[in-house]
């Protein structure tokens, strides 16, 4: 058995990770128009108009997401695996998939279902369409604790780890993710302005931090897989 194939499953997931986020990005930004988010400070009639205007792309995009939903679980499982390789034991790895498994439902299954249900019967009472719009957007942008828990255990794991699976600075990027989640609590209070779900602070600052976090994670997962491969081939040589 060649050394390159020892952790080839990890390599598959490592390549799958950015591929899935690319598809996810196309779905949420270009097709379903939930990112950047539509305005919270609009009337029920304007929300109905939003669904009418993007009817087809919402249906295509979110149906695609219903099929690909599990990709999120797969990317989180990969991060769990890398945390397990750290010197800190399994507790943070299990905490990470625990938090993220909870996050899948309020974090994007609910917005998917709410928007598809709104598009399902466009002639529904506008008040109900408006309810689905708010429920979808607030659960999608306002699911905070599940991700906060995952970022927290990730940050602690990195800081305590002696195997150098991820560099220490990435722990601080993850802590910044927690800070944006704390700020985002305000979207449940403000229907407009900087702290609304489409606001410059509650939304755009969070997007910038998330993009840095995700971009770094993609690179670091690759680096971690490379180091794992190198370590294994070194062990193979030592064993011979």
């Amino acid at each position: 058995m060649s050394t390159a194939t020892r952790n080839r499953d990890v390599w598959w997931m490592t390549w799958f990770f950015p591929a899935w986020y690319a598809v996810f990005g196309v779905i949420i930004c270009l097709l379903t128009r939930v990112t950047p988010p539509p305005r919270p400070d609009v009337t029920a009639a304007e929300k109905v108009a939003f669904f009418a205007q993007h009817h087809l792309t919402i249906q295509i995009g979110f149906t695609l997401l219903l099929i690909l939903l599990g990709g999120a679980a797969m990317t989180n499982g990969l991060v769990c695996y890398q945390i397990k390789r750290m010197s800190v034991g399994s507790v943070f790895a299990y905490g990470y998939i625990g938090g993220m498994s909870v996050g899948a439902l309020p974090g994007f299954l609910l917005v998917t279902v709410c928007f598809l249900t709104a598009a399902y019967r466009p002639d529904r009472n506008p008040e109900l369409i408006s309810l689905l719009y708010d429920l979808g957007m607030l659960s999608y942008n306002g699911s905070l604790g599940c991700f906060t828990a995952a970022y927290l255990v990730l940050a602690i794991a990195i800081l305590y780890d002696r195997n150098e699976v991820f560099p220490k600075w990435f722990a601080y990027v993850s802590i910044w993710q927690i800070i944006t989640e704390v700020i985002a609590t305000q979207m449940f209070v403000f229907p407009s302005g900087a702290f609304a779900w489409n606001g410059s602070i509650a939304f755009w600052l969070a997007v910038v931090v998330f993009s840095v976090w995700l971009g770094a994670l993609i690179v670091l997962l690759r680096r971690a897989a490379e180091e794992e491969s190198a370590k294994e081939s070194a062990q193979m040589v030592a064993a011979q």
Partner: protein
Amino acid sequence: MQILEQAQDLPTAGNIKAQWVSLWTGPAVGAVLLVAAIAFPGFWPPMSPTMSADQVAAFYADHTAWIRASQVTFNLCGILIVPFLSLIVVQMKRMRQTHVFAYCYLTAMVSGATIFALSNVFFLVAAFRPGRNPELIQLLNDLAWIVFIAPIGMVVSQFVLLALAVYFDDQEHPVFPKWVGHFSLIIAAAMVPAAGAAVFQTGPLAWDGLWSFWVRNGAYALFVIVMFFVLRKAIQRQAVDDGVISA
């Protein structure tokens, strides 16, 4: 399964016993869920998405007791499938590979089960006050059906991960035979079209349609049944390898 006398107190024997109990939760839970499915009036035939709000409200008013009884059973027992699915995770961890697919599978399994649990709640809230405004009952019914049928992504990823794990398990005596990988992908392909239930109100892809209802749910039931025998054999082989039972 007859555990050898001298192996009774070994940790390996405990492991096998635990897996054996989890294995048999599968048919037990399956039987209970089958009864719940037979008892749910909304399945015989599956409620049509083209029903008007008044018709939906009348349906809940006419069948309140049976809807509550069956959906409470789904609510109470549906997630009991988790120990059975956990067995797949345990066996995946025995395969010749890192454990990355197993952790991905575990994550997808938990999220998938949560989605199923949400659909029961929507059915039950719709049945809670049959006198509610019919538009609201129709909304809850739409949410219940769409959440029940359409979000197949979490199970589809489980099938793909299981298939990948089987294909990557290149030891001389793999944990699962290769055909389990092919079978898993066929089940995934059979379930994918059900995502259309969130869009179509008529035809095979509607939530009461031939594909989205019968093929989708039938495929998942078939998967559980086949995996019962696959897992049974895998555990027996593991027990022999561990010296817990005689060959």
